């Protein structure tokens, strides 16, 4: 788990719910199974809602990490 190869990055800071989730979902749809997406999300509702929703869609969350006032969510496409 130390080195995760990131295929795509999506910066969704300042993107409100539920747009942030929709953008994450659309991005994941473009990607191939097993590829990894890094999403940057605001603190508060965005990180909570997007992680729950991504998990519900069946993707695997590899890492969740707080960086100052935002969060990094690393998702492996199912």
């Amino acid at each position: 788990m130390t080195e995760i190869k990131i295929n795509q990055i999506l910066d969704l800071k300042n993107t409100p719910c539920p747009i942030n989730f929709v953008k994450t979902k659309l991005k994941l749809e473009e990607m191939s199974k097993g590829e990894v997406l890094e999403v940057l999300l605001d603190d508060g509702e965005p990180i909570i809602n997007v992680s729950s929703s991504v998990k519900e869609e069946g993707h695997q969350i590899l890492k969740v990490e707080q960086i100052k006032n935002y969060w990094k969510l690393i998702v492996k496409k199912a």
Partner: protein
Amino acid sequence: MKNKKINLDLNELRKGGILKQLQKDYFILRTRIPGGYLKSDMLPKFRQIAKKYGKDYVHLSTRQAIEIPWIHIRDLEKLIKELKRLGISRGACGPRSRNIVACPGSSVCRFGFTNVEKLATEFDRKFFGQDVPKKFKIALTGCPNSCAKPQENDIGFMAVGEPECDSTKCTSCNLCAKVCEKVCARGGREPAIIMDENKKPVYRREYCFFEGDCIRVCPASAWRVKRTGYTVFVGGKVGRFPKLGYKIKEFASEEEIFKIADKCIKRYNQIAEPGERFGESIEKIGIEELKRQIL
């Protein structure tokens, strides 16, 4: 109009579901739709009734059933026969237990802990239309969001889920503690989940609202439902003198809630004066006394 023969079986009318409307000689038909769950092939039948006997519209009642107004007194007998033929059940009015109210539950809702649809059907079979001193309303809701408002009913059951954490799966992301802190702050409590010095969650059950936010948010699926149950509220009502129900049990099993509902209806019949709601009778005897009698 006087010489027009109106052929009505009054006993049939007393079975309920026919309410006198403001306008002379007109009635409202109230139907029975447990939890508001209705097979779509029933809808044309309601349409048929509304067109033929009413004014081609229906009203959705606050207890999730369909009401059809503007039924003329001379059509009542025919209507009752037609309802039977179509398989539309009449609702309750007067001193009887009412249509069961329920939320969507776990079959479709992301928050639901239990299958409320199934439960509503079973509750309807056991508790609908029973004779009581005034009225008796039952609500079933699948989680603490309380969409079906169990606290406003004579008896309400709210599904709850106790979480547990498999710390070997935990990645120390802190999201569970974060959502928990938020929920508990809104509810005026200390957080039920705090992180220890190794950045692993510590669960403090006494502060938990059993809403399951930690389970939904956990990226590693370390949090899961340990058990589900029902929080029981009794004596709630709205009306002219609103009052929220008393919480009498935090975690009752599905088997227990049928017994509790049954005992409540029996006790209500014993302790209430005619015209008195369950909550008012509970005030007279005291909630602790009721708990002693029914739990």
